């Protein structure tokens, strides 16, 4: 722990991966765990230091969601995934920077300033779990808890060259995670390797009566890492997952497929004809759910408050000051989509989502793993795209995705960051461990 604290103090002033440090709390937890270990306890996360994205509640420690709106908000209880880290004897070194309310894929929209890429500070770390990706890559923490709605774990894991898992929806309880889009949000881990992900998932998964959509089923994460036999798996590939991606990303993806092939895996073509629907579907679901989730931040019950003469003005000015540009953009879009005259859109999108799910279920009848790029382009520089939301947006299809770093551009003085493909797994398989 003391080593990690030293790394934190040395690197974070530039990296800006942390919003709130909990060094004293971490030391206290470590002392308690040491005492347990002497009695023969302290299982699972003994000696492992965690960072937690700042949209998870930790009782008594402020939770900002990267927003001015919650700059001073201190939650009254602890989120289930955070509780599981503590119950399994992990120590928590701090709350990690993120795009405001998890809206962004570059780590630049935080009220507390942008996070830098751990591999090259001129580049963005990806988002929205920007601090999580950077802190793991920089070695400040061993493991990080992030959340993913439309790529928020996968993207920063990819840009920082670490491993990230977006678990299947419901596998990890969302209790205590601030909503972005309630029907898509999933907590998940980031780690330096697949084994770290498996270890984390064994503890994080499980039914929680406080999140009624959490799954009763548990999956054998560690087991699937240990028993991975490449010659027994079928790797699915599809040209439709590669259309429009950067040539370098395509090359990497193809390299991964060849690697599997060289280890004896069977390569099969899978048909994903409706994949183009994912993009509009994601936005039609995410925007209205997000606008609704933001509704409670009015400056009156809690949140940043600007007093005005009338109730209406108090709400309007509190929101005007408390929210950043991207948040307002999404609230406006979401409100528009949920207007009565457009009521059919959201319903249509939910149906389209079911269709996409069935399409993937069919594809997984043929393949155990589907390989796809995580992000269509390599990382870009800070400030390069912040005013171009369309380029920033990406989509997903509610599936579990495991991400493995597998590419570093060599010989570059700039030391470009790693960018890896996503593995869609029919089981939440961490078979990429082999890589």
């Amino acid at each position, binding site marked *: 722990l003391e080593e990690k604290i030293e790394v934190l103090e040395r690197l974070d002033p530039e990296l800006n991966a942390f919003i709130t440090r909990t060094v004293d709390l971490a030391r206290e937890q470590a002392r308690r765990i040491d005492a347990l270990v002497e009695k023969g306890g302290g299982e699972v996360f003994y000696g492992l230091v965690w960072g937690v994205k700042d949209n998870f509640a930790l009782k008594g420690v402020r939770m900002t969601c990267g927003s001015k709106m919650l700059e001073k908000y201190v939650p009254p*209880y602890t989120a289930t995934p955070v509780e599981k880290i503590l119950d399994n004897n992990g120590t928590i070194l701090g709350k990690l920077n993120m795009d405001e309310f998890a809206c962004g894929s570059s780590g630049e929209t935080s009220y507390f300033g942008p996070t830098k890429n751990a591999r090259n500070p001129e580049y963005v770390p990806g988002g929205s779990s920007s601090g999580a990706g950077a802190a793991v890559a920089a070695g400040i923490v061993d493991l990080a808890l992030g959340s993913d709605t439309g790529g928020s774990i996968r993207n920063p894991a990819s840009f920082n060259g670490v491993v990230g898992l977006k678990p299947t929806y419901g596998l990890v309880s969302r209790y205590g995670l601030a909503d972005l889009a309630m029907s898509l949000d999933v907590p998940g881990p980031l780690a330096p390797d697949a084994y770290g992900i498996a270890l984390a998932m064994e503890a994080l998964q499980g039914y929680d009566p406080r999140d009624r959509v959490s799954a009763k089923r548990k999956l054998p994460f560690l087991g699937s890492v240990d028993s991975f036999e490449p010659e027994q798996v079928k790797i699915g590939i599809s040209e439709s997952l590669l259309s429009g991606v950067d040539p370098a990303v395509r090359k990497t993806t193809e390299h991964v497929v060849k690697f599997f092939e060289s280890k004896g895996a069977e390569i099969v073509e899978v048909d994903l004809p409706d994949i183009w629907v994912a993009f509009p579907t994601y936005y039609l679901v995410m925007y209205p759910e997000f606008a609704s989730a933001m*509704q409670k931040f009015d400056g009156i019950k809690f949140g940043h408050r600007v007093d005005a003469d009338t*109730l*209406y003005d108090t709400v309007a000015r509190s929101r005007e000051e408390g929210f950043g540009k991207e948040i307002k953009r999404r609230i406006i879009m979401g409100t528009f989509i949920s207007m009565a005259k457009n009521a059919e859109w959201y319903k249509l999108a939910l149906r389209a989502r079911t269709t996409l799910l069935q399409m993937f279920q069919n594809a997984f009848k043929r393949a155990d793993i589907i390989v796809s790029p995580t992000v269509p382009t390599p990382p870009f520089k800070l400030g390069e795209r912040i005013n171009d939301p369309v380029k920033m947006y990406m989509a997903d299809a509610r599936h579990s995705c495991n991400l493995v770093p597998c590419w570093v551009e060599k010989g570059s003085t700039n030391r470009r960051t790693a960018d890896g493909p996503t593995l869609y797994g029919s089981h939440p398989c961490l078979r990429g461990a082999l890589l």
Partner: protein
Amino acid sequence: LKRVVSNGQNRIRDSRSAEKKPDGINEEVIRKAVMVALALNCKIRDEPLRFLRKHYFYPDLPSNYQRTSEPFAVEGELNGVRIREIHIEEDPGRYELREGIVDYNRSGVPLIEIVTEPDMTTVEEARDFLKHLRAVLDYLDVILYPEIGFRVDANVSIEGGERVEVKNINSIHGVVRALKYVLDKELGDLFEGLAKRFGVKNAVSFCLNLRGELNYRDKYLAEIPGRERLIKLAELYFSGKITKPVYVEYLRRILDDPAFVPAAQEQLSDEELRRIAREIISANPQAVADYKSGEKKAVNFLVGQIVAKTKGRADPRKAIQILRAELQRL
């Protein structure tokens, strides 16, 4: 908003948090709602029950949206009154606007809302229906908090007029009182007198305005001294001697000031009105350009400017005529 009250017996501590999740479906309320639906001879819809969020910014809900189900039962009947639909929603807190206090103690408690068709034509019929309904609900033992558990939103439609809704009445006696109040006999008499002189349509609009103002003051018409002042006001307005904004202002003054007697107000001469119209035209070139390019609605904006400038003394109808003439001349 000055104060938020919650004695901690409900879930306000959770629901005001940024990261709380819904607790899922309350099975008890579903069971009770089905009992109510069956007792009222409703058809239960054979579809998944979807819940919607009704968004609005108001202090009575901690999350600024109300969770409301779609109708799950339809086409029922009780005592000759048709039941349109039944749905489930969450009760908001109680917001005392005048005191600036919101009480969240009942916020989040499930409500079963029963909507009837407009099948009752007298106060007595409404009372009989509610007594029967209350008996059914008591028999089913579905009312959780007797003191707040049975509330009525009463709607009254008068032929030719708008629908009037009195919300959140918490006893049958209260409903009867509210309905009588809405259908105030005094008001009825006034209505009849006005209808004879100015026609039914004018009488309806006058009585609705009056009732709105009375509701706002929490008063009966019977409490207003010197009823002839109202007749005089109606006469001034319907004969075109005062403009609408002046009429509204006078109506309020009659109710607030027992000594106030409405009198015709000096209206602007056509000359003056024309002069003002020209001023407004030269001060708003954009609106004029819009009008010229076919955006005929721009004239409404200009009329608004004239009414504002003359503090309501200009008759909007006359102002429009003069404005159009002036715009044609350009």
